[in-house]
């Protein structure tokens, strides 16, 4: 048995979510190899080599993989797939983009967004936006899987795996990178933060999200938003937590001025502790919150910031 785990990274840093994907791979059983596909990405390879439970790190360092375009990466992974029983990626933008191509090229199904591993061929995954949980047995010889990391705890990083450079260059030549507009933030990533504070429609406008910043700074939190706040134009979509945004499960999730629509709950209800601040005592968010406070957020937030 052997597992190939695709490293999620930006050519400089290995994303923390990969440590959780490796935890999922460990439950599948067998020898674990991490693939780092990128360009000038040796720093990522060195971080990957420290991931516990990994025996080998394959590095495909080539300009063709710089932006991890699905067309090129899928050809690379498909060529490597021969040697592995499970091909596993994190269910983030990159993995979700290229993995189904790998599955189709290998003529196998993909099992998406697993939250648990029951055995080497049986997996648990949410369907209907998490309103039902399916247990699925794969009938394919080779399993192609994406992992929703909220279901797994990160492995440690005191390992020492062998790094092997591979010289496989695949360039489909049909797609090319143009540009990127990434949100620059000093705060942790939504997906990796241990504390998340999110604002909803109750914030009233984008400026008022500043009220969350002081609290986020004190708690080392990431700032998120509900779809209602994004749709109202308060903040950009990459801050969205929910079924159609990011799925998070921090130790502490603070929902401010968020009513608790099903689609938002789908993105945060696996958080360990949920706090809700809302002036409407009937808001559904209180039904999932461990601690609720019925208050005007414009009074509660400055007080909370002062008392932390």
């Amino acid at each position, binding site marked *: 048995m052997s597992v190939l785990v695709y490293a999620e990274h930006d050519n400089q840093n290995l994303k923390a979510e990969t440590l959780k994907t490796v935890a999922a791979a460990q439950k599948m059983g067998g020898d674990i190899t991490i693939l780092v596909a990128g360009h000038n990405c040796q720093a990522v390879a060195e971080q990957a080599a420290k991931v516990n439970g990994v025996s080998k790190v394959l590095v495909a360092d080539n300009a063709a993989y710089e932006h991890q375009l699905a067309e090129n990466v899928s050809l690379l992974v498909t060529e490597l797939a021969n040697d592995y029983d499970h091909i596993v990626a994190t269910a983030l933008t990159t993995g979700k983009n290229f993995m189904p*191509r790998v599955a189709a090229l290998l003529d196998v199904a993909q099992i998406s967004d697993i939250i648990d591993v029951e055995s080497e061929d049986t997996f648990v995954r949410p369907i*209907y936006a998490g309103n039902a949980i399916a247990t699925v047995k794969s009938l394919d010889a080779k399993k192609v899987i994406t992992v929703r990391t909220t279901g797994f705890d990160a492995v440690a990083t005191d390992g020492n795996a062998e790094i092997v450079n591979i010289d496989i260059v695949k360039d489909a030549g*049909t797609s090319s990178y143009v540009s*990127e507009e990434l949100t620059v933030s000093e705060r942790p990533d939504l997906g990796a933060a241990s504390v998340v504070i999110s604002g909803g429609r109750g914030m009233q406008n984008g400026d008022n999200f500043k009220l969350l910043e002081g609290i986020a700074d004190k708690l080392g939190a990431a700032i998120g938003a509900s779809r209602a706040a994004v749709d109202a134009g308060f903040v950009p*979509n990459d801050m969205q937590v929910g079924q*159609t945004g990011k799925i998070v499960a921090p130790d502490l999730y603070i929902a401010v001025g968020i009513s608790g629509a099903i689609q938002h709950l789908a993105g945060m209800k696996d958080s360990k502790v949920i706090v809700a601040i809302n002036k409407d005592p009937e808001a559904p968010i209180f039904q999932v919150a461990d601690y609720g406070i019925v208050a005007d957020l414009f009074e509660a937030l400055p007080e909370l910031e002062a008392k932390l």
Partner: protein
Amino acid sequence: MKILVPIKRVIDYNVKVRVKPDNSNVDLANVKMAINPFCEIAVEEAIRLKEAGIASEVVAVSIGDKSCQEQLRTALALGADRAIQIETSETLDALNIAKLLQKIVEEEQPKLVILGKQSIDSDNNQTGQMLAALTNMPQGTFASEVKVDGDKVNVTREVDGGLQTITLSLPAIVTTDLRLNEPRYASLPNIMKAKRKPLVVKSAADFGLDLSPRSTLLKVTPPATRQAGIIVESIDELVEKLKNEAKVIS
């Protein structure tokens, strides 16, 4: 150029799903069904490209039993020119759907295929990418902007950290994200007109593909429910609870 838009019939997004008591699946009996929201955005984008004079024809396709003709008629009412139903009574997984769509792509030779990024029932997010691999086309997934420029298409994609723009050679596959557009409502005259637009039925069995299932659904259960906690009376009490009871802040 011709645009192909595969669409899926799913549970209406406003309906709360319930798991069957025997845990075999969710209960879809007598539940309101609709066109998958992401597919509706795909139809809208194709129609806008036609209205802008870039596309010449929009063809909608759906795979399922006769009931999915309802959603194909919706696509026709929104502005698609004709529709294809691939008849099957089986629930097919994404790979088999992609294989059937590959056959339609070979027949129709569209320059652009626009699909929803995922369906709100199985939440797989696979079909567009699989179709792209099978047809050897490039893909622009999770699109928030689509600009056709000669024999290329520029796609702006919603990625984890923000937005990414890529250029694809046509023919290409695009999958839609929520912010690509806001779909229109079909007008009554257009709903009436849609009844007369061509809708061809093909049998999935006639394509000569092996469509056997690749997985077995062992069980479906309701998610673990969260117990409502307590209402605290003051910020002081909240901070005290978070420090000393939940121990999530120090």
